[in-house]
């Protein structure tokens, strides 16, 4: 991407410390909609042969070839009418996520001159293996195909899996293909990174709920695309879009969709609903639409541009002709100008970019917690850039609905774009710590994150249910100091506590043992997770204790002291001082949180920070009451 890595401190080229030879032996598995192999982002020039551990294949179908960067590809989608039956990316999405995670460094890339910069992945020297499970239209992605992708990716020997796919709701693990695949990946030492979902800001909308998955929420970055609208009276309002079309400042007559229909009621016409606009009334004009997803209706009726109202102006989208999406207030400004002017005119300018001082702020669309399946496991886990990300794309896919352009790089938004950033960071950390388990990498990312706080924006008001542990900080994550480990055995014990006993325990664990009495009685909140969460009864006095063990991955002979930040929880840490004689030594402690429960639907949080003066290991503690 051309900005997001700089935003989080992973600078280009020599400015960032790397392990080139290890990075070159790192393989990222991308389960998505395929890939555009001819992209400069996936060019194999300068790469040696694939790593020895690689056991995958290049089965991309006709006219598809791999190289030493894109070392393997498989596809699990059926032949669809009008689409090549191959691993080619017919949606642009797979190319975008792959390049964000591990794409080459490609200079001087932009979207028709916008967002110009150097596109790169988190680990540009790593290799990419692609597993295609999605096609456009109603086919979407299938659960059975996704599980085949996991089955192959794990066996092929990838190091990290990035999967920006999810259902429309969360499910218990045993009927959740993402959770099943990721569990077996974890058991083989592979971390799965998954997008949290785009159903925010409503509560409990995170669809990726398993503790062995690193679940990613989306934020903005410090670069935003804005599009000015200049009215005939000279007044200017600033809207959001990635508008590459230049009207050269020419002003056109304004017309409101509501009064440009001869076939629909006022409301649907105001929405510019399909079939409602009369081309005779909109041709050659700028149309005001109450709903931003219908602007292509105005375009098809001959409008030269559209100004739309949007309830979501915290990100900018690509449109197929000049559009600016305004907040309600600004939209009403335009409406009142139009209603009070005899010949109202306006123009929509080509977008430009501005610096967003307040970033990172959680995106409105990013799904929120709490975890609907395991209430005492916090989700999402971490936040990364997901809005207005410029990365590789497939020219076989339109960059927006009804768009006739073909681009190799485009701007996209969603937790789909946040997820591969974390996959890239996970791979980056793994190059410094090749033997670290998935849980150690996950812990390093969570406990070193930039803290975000609810007061920066109303969109953060759900605090840790919006941004988890905070925003990823790749440079600090290399040296977390302490990590919370949870291996396959710990997760199996966790499942025992959730009544995965008997047959299911035996089958999932793959060994003939059964849950011990202690395991059966274990509480989910005592999984050695880098955050601590408990659901309590609203307003009633509560007292919960979390048991945790940390592993020293910093220096020998070091003393960590516990500090609690945030004062609306009464917290006792025992012991509050931990002395580590050696590296990889483990120490256990308890955290007891007490007080009166929050009101229904509310949460109270604080942070436990272990510090040795060099490292600061921060864990969110969240107490909430269900409604």
């Amino acid at each position, binding site marked *: 991407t051309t900005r997001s890595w700089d935003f989080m401190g992973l600078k280009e080229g020599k400015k960032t410390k790397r392990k080139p030879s290890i990075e070159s032996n790192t393989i990222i598995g991308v389960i998505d909609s395929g890939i555009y192999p001819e992209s400069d982002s996936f060019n194999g020039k300068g790469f040696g042969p694939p790593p020895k551990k690689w056991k995958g294949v290049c089965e991309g179908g006709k006219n598809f070839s791999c190289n030493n960067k894109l070392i393997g590809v498989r596809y699990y989608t059926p032949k669809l009418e009008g689409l090549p039956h191959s691993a080619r990316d017919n949606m642009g999405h797979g190319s975008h996520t792959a390049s964000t995670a591990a794409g080459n460094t490609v200079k001087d890339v932009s979207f028709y001159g916008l967002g110009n910069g150097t596109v790169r992945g988190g680990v540009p020297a790593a290799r990419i293996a692609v597993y295609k499970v999605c096609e456009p239209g109603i086919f*979407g992605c299938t*659960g059975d195909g996704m599980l085949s992708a996991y089955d192959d990716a794990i066996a092929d020997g990838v190091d990290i899996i990035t999967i920006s796919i999810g259902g429309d709701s969360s499910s218990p693990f045993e*009927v959740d293909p993402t959770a099943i695949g990721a569990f077996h990946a974890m*058991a083989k030492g592979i971390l799965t990174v998954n997008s949290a*979902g785009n159903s925010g800001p409503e509560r409990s909308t995170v669809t990726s709920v398993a503790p062995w998955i690193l679940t990613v929420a989306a934020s903005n970055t410090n670069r935003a695309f804005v599009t000015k609208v200049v009215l005939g009276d000279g007044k200017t309002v600033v809207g959001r879009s990635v508008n590459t079309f230049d009207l050269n400042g020419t002003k056109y007559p304004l017309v409101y969709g509501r009064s440009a229909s001869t076939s629909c009621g006022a409301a649907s016409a105001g929405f510019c609903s399909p079939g409602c606009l009369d081309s005779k009334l909109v041709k050659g004009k700028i149309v005001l639409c109450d709903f931003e997803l219908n602007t292509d209706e105005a375009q098809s009726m001959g409008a030269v541009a559209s100004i739309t109202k949007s309830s979501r102006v915290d990100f900018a989208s690509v449109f197929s002709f000049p559009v600016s999406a305004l907040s309600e207030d600004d939209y009403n400004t335009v409406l009142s100008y139009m209603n009070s002017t005899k010949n109202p005119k306006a123009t929509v300018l080509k977008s430009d970019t501005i610096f967003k001082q307040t970033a990172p702020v959680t995106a409105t669309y990013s799904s929120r917690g709490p975890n609907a399946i395991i209430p005492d496991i916090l989700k999402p886990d971490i936040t990364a850039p997901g809005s207005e990300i410029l990365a590789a794309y497939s020219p076989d896919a339109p960059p927006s609905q009804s768009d006739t352009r073909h681009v190799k790089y485009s701007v996209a938004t969603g937790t789909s774009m946040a997820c591969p950033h974390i996959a890239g960071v996970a791979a980056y950390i793994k190059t410094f710590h090749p033997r670290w388990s998935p849980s150690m990498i996950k812990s390093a990312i969570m406990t070193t994150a930039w803290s975000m706080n609810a007061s920066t924006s109303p969109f953060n008001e759900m605090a840790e249910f919006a941004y988890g542990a905070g925003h990823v900080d790749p440079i600090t994550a290399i040296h977390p100091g302490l990590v919370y480990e949870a291996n396959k055995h710990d997760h199996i014990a966790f499942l025992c506590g959730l009544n995965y006993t008997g047959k*299911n325990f035996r089958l999932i664990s793959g060994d003939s043992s059964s849950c011990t009495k202690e395991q059966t009685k274990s509480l989910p909140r005592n999984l050695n997770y880098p955050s601590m969460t408990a659901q309590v009864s609203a307003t009633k006095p509560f007292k919960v204790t979390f048991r945790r063990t940390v592993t020293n991955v910093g220096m020998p002979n070091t003393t960590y002291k516990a500090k609690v930040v945030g004062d609306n929880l009464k917290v006792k840490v025992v012991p509050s001082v931990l002395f580590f004689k050696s590296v990889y030594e483990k120490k256990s402690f308890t955290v007891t949180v007490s007080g009166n429960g929050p009101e229904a639907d509310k949460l109270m949080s604080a942070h436990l920070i272990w510090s040795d003066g060099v490292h600061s290991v921060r864990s969110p503690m969240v107490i909430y009451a269900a409604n």
Partner: protein
Amino acid sequence: AKYDQDKQVYIVYMGALPARVDYMPMSHHTSILQQVTGESSIENRLVRSYKRSFNGFAARLTESEREILASMEEVVSVFPSKKLMLQ
């Protein structure tokens, strides 16, 4: 066509691959399907086999066949293969 309409693709999850060296996932999946469907040919039934990193398969099943499979000792869960979305 009506017979087909009663069927949908289900995922049959069977946990980890047994450690036995002589275990042959594909044969096991095939024999389970033949047993449950009573059909010798499973060509129109078996959609996918998971046999490299974990155990299980995807197949076109009726609801009653799903229930039988779910109760089997060697099956963890049987659930519909849903449509998922890019995010």
